[in-house]
């Protein structure tokens, strides 16, 4: 039995006039759905949060002592690097893979049939990435302070820097991940490889696990093209004493430049997303 017989006026197909829901509202609805879906996949949640924490503990155990005569411990250095790389992992890698998964499991096909704007869809992903990145940083700081005895940012100015580097870094890496995945049109399995390769390479050359200024100059130059190096640098400005600036390649935190580079990547990624994104593989098959 079709449960309810159509009472008068119940299923009238009056023209769907009226205003379309704003992109902001659509993004909010989609973002909430993304967050729910993420937290309902237990394994993914555990893995996402555990990996950077384990890395932080491992590196904290392996490397003791100070960096040169800077008075900065390796552990304090790693908290900056691993915060940055965790940020990239939860945004760039996760979203790139999730776009491919949406393509594979029929989600995109169904969304394509609605007036959801692609911007609303992307923004929904970015909302998820931001929520996860924020929680991960909180978890990392809790473990860092509680277990490894690290220092939290010391001034309100540094907290402010943490906030804008986090927001700008998460937005940039989110869009970049979506742009790469959208341009490559990988399926879920290949997306895992496609997204992890640049992430891992950048992690090694951007000053996550090694003191950046100790890397070969060539690698430093390559790393400086990409966002992760700048996010790391921003995080160091939050977690390390200002005296450590002397160790930086430019002998400065270069906060303005960080904002500039990340902003440029943000715009470029957005353009790539808009140019390459298709709800489904048109003319595939």
């Amino acid at each position: 039995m079709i449960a309810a017989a159509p009472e008068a006026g119940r299923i009238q197909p009056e023209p769907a006039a009226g205003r379309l829901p704003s992109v902001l509202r659509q993004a909010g609805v989609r973002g909430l759905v993304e967050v729910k879906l993420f937290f309902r996949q237990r394994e993914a949640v555990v893995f996402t949060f555990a990996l950077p924490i384990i890395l932080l503990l491992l590196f904290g155990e392996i490397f003791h002592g100070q960096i040169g005569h800077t008075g900065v411990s390796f552990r304090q250095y790693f908290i900056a690097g691993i915060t940055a790389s965790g940020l990239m992992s939860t945004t760039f890698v996760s979203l790139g893979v999730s776009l491919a998964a949406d393509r594979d499991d029929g989600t995109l096909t169904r969304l394509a049939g609605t007036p959801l704007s692609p911007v609303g869809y992307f923004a929904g992903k970015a909302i998820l990435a931001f929520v996860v990145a924020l929680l991960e940083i909180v978890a990392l700081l809790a473990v860092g302070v509680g277990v490894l005895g690290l220092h939290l940012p010391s001034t309100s100015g540094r907290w402010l820097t943490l906030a804008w580097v986090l927001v700008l870094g998460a937005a940039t890496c989110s869009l970049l991940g979506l742009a790469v995945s959208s341009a490559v049109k990988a399926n879920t399995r290949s997306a895992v490889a496609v997204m992890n390769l640049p992430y891992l390479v950048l992690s090694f050359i951007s000053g996550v696990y090694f003191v950046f200024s100790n890397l070969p100059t060539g690698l430093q130059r390559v790393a400086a093209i990409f966002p992760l190096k700048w996010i790391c640098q921003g995080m160091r400005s939050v977690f390390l004493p200002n005296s450590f600036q002397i160790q930086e390649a430019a002998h400065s935190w270069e906060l303005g430049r960080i904002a500039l580079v990340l902003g440029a990547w943000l715009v470029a990624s957005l353009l790539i997303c808009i140019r390459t994104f298709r709800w489904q593989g048109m003319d595939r098959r």
Partner: protein
Amino acid sequence: MANTIGEPAHAVRVRGLRKQYHGKTAVDGIDLDIERGEVFALLGPNGAGKTTTVEILEGHRRRDDGEVSVLGIDPAGANRAWRARIGIVPQSDWATGELTVREMVAQYSAYFPRPRDPDEVIAAVGMTDQAGKRLRRLSGGQRRRVDVAIGIVGRPELLFLDEPTTGFDPQARRQFWELISELSHDGTTILLTTHYLDEAEALARRVAVLAGGRIAALGTPADLGGAADEATVSWLTPDGTRSVQTTTPTQFVMQLAGSSGEEIPGLSVTRASLEDRYLELIEAADGQEPASGKIGATR
């Protein structure tokens, strides 16, 4: 009826639609007019071009050639406002689903300007008892109903249903047919693809039989069953079975009996059903279009 083309009375108007995939012709010059409020079925075997045609009408696939107007707009350049006026139930199944039925339908309702109430839509597809269940835990037929709920929650003027009942058990199909009749009764235009003849017969006011990317026949289900006054008389002779087509089978059998004076071995008189007619059309298209290859009748 459909003589003045391009009138607003038409929900869908197609002229000379063509589409190739890597040199293989999928749609080979289709003309269609679907009136507002009509239930129209595209009937045909797998590979006949049904899904390609529908996906072009939905704006999900580009065409190579031809004119297409859906609700007065070319779907190739359609905007979000146009999307808000159509509903789509695609062919593909879900691979995953950690949302509940209610969350899913509510999500989709939020993308439309004047949605139906999600709970009412869930009731209309007979899923009220499962509204709190996650999609992953539903049967294939139940997931399909959720798809239909998503397709109609935006209050569409035109609803596309691509093989909606594949995998349904007979009872679920009956229920689904009732739902479609209700929607149609309330004025929704419905374009349905199917390879089930009984479905086309039960639901559609008009049917187009698609074979080899072309329309092999178009008309009401009764029209297509067509030459129903013609019957086939067949019987056994020493040389094997003989068949004769005639509009006067009774007379023919009497003559046949008169000439031998005995029981006629293996005598049968049959009339063409829609199914016979359909298979004939498909076979004819198959012979005519060897290039388009894989048109295996699925029944």
